[in-house]
């Protein structure tokens, strides 16, 4: 049974202007890519990737709306409810790994990189953000021994442009056994296309509106496949995502209405 556990905040790290990491006093032994449901009593409960998976668990939060603002106000000693870990994590089998992360999408990718390096694998990461101050986990990755490329939309650090531009260029010269991506869906969609051209198997961690988080309510199900993002996901293989005409085009809001990312296909 997946019960609610109340965890205490041991440490708070301000990663960027808008992103904070909370280290909790519980060890849920998550696989990178798995998520927990984070409960703020009387406020809400939302899914968050586990960003520190071994030892005391951590979550890394981008301040966006009411829930994340209230979460980011919490200090050391503060308490939150945790259910999980849930869903399926990334599956690593290759030796040369490539990670492509946009914004807070680095959260599930960073522990994946650390684990892989410990196992003697070679890891390259392309980390993107809108601006230099919002780059997440670049130092953490370098410290672990990851080769890091950086891109920012405004050019304040690294390549001026998108992670996908850097990816395209990198794949002209090098190849990898596997690619892992998390970030804005439009970015992940492009990453899949580029990696597929080079025949690099890719896994992406998806974001959909979660209600139950345990595979019962059906709110997070992908069209085309019927797969539940909270149960069979949130990480999917490119082949699974190709069967969903929803991926890259739309998601569903809290009522279950379709919301298109860009123009309607």
């Amino acid at each position, binding site marked *: 049974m997946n*019960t*609610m556990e109340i965890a205490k905040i041991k440490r708070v790290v301000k990663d960027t202007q808008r992103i904070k990491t909370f280290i909790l006093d519980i060890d849920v032994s998550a696989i990178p890519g798995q998520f927990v449901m984070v409960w703020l009593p009387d*406020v809400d409960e939302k899914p968050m990737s586990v960003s520190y998976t071994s030892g005391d668990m951590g979550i890394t939060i981008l301040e966006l709306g009411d829930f994340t603002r209230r979460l980011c106000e919490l200090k050391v000693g503060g308490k939150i409810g945790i259910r999980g870990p849930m869903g399926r994590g990334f599956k690593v089998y290759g030796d040369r790994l490539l990670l492509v992360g946009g914004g807070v999408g680095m959260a599930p990718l960073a522990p994946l990189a650390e684990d892989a390096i410990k196992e003697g694998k070679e890891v390259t990461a392309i980390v993107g953000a809108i601006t230099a101050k919002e780059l997440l986990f670049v130092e953490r990755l370098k410290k672990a021994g990851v080769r890091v490329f950086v891109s920012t939309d405004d050019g304040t650090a690294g390549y001026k442009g998108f992670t996908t531009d850097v990816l395209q260029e990198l794949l002209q010269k090098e190849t990898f056994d596997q690619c892992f991506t998390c970030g804005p869906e439009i970015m992940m969609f492009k990453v899949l296309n580029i990696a597929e051209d080079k025949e690099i198997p890719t896994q992406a961690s998806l974001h959909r509106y979660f209600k139950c988080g345990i595979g019962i*309510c*059906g709110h997070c199900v992908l*069209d085309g*496949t019927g797969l539940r993002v909270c149960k069979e996901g949130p990480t999917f293989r490119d082949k699974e995502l190709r069967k969903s005409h929803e991926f890259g085009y739309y998601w569903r809001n809290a009522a279950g209405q379709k919301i298109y990312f860009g123009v309607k296909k």
Partner: protein
Amino acid sequence: MEVEVAGIKLKNPTILASGILGTTGASLRRVAMAGAGAVVSKSAGSEARVGHRNPTVIEVPQGLLNAVGLSNCGIDEMAGELEIAKEAGVPVIASVYGFSIDDYVKSAGALNSYADAIELNLSCPNVERAGQFFGKSPELAFEAVREVKRKVKVPVFAKLTAEAGDIAEIAKACEEAKADAIVAINTIKAMSINIDARRPVLGNKVGGLSGKCIKSIAVRCVYEIASEVSIPVIGCGGILTGEDALEFIMAGAEAVQIGTGVLLRGISVFRKVSLEMKEFMEERELKLEDIRGVALR
């Protein structure tokens, strides 16, 4: 193990209950292809609804507690989802709720040509003045069924709550209003408090209890209803195994619905339950007709 309920042929007596994996057509189609005899969509209303804040579904001993709050995309989008659900080739039942009789009629009317039957949710415990509000009063239940029957051509099922003072009396009122079948039961109001946080866990504080812990209540309800009405009864509440389903059949049910069972036994629960029912009967050389309602005799 074919059965026929209100003229609808099911390849087996297990039906997906409303509100479980029923938000979209792709999800319903997947459950249908995994072996359900029929599927019921998430209760839809005339307007889209976001529902209650999370936590909306939590695990409790021997069951689930939910206060989803009837979130749904509204009947217009739901019509398209039902069309996708139908691709699996099993009967699709559209569940509707309302805040007024007119509301029920409007929603049932909008979905009637996309579904093999309409299920009236007269029993949701989670939204004030919807669902249960109608299913606790024989007069309102009667009126809801009668008005919907005037509007729609497909069979109409009335889904009832154990929280009605006398569920058999409500069922009789629905039968008089020409309901084609009764579904019993919906979830039962309950609460869970986290003792460390000292707060009710559900966003809505109160929710509806489902799963194994309500099975005996559901069996009692089906038994009472089947003793009083002659229209088919579909049993629902806490069914995980073939043995559970057979208990409902013996209490007088024609078929069963399964919701929470999906959590413990996966989407293949429908195939598993019908197989287990079949095994039980084959070992004893019985047919469903031999045991249906035996406990009532």
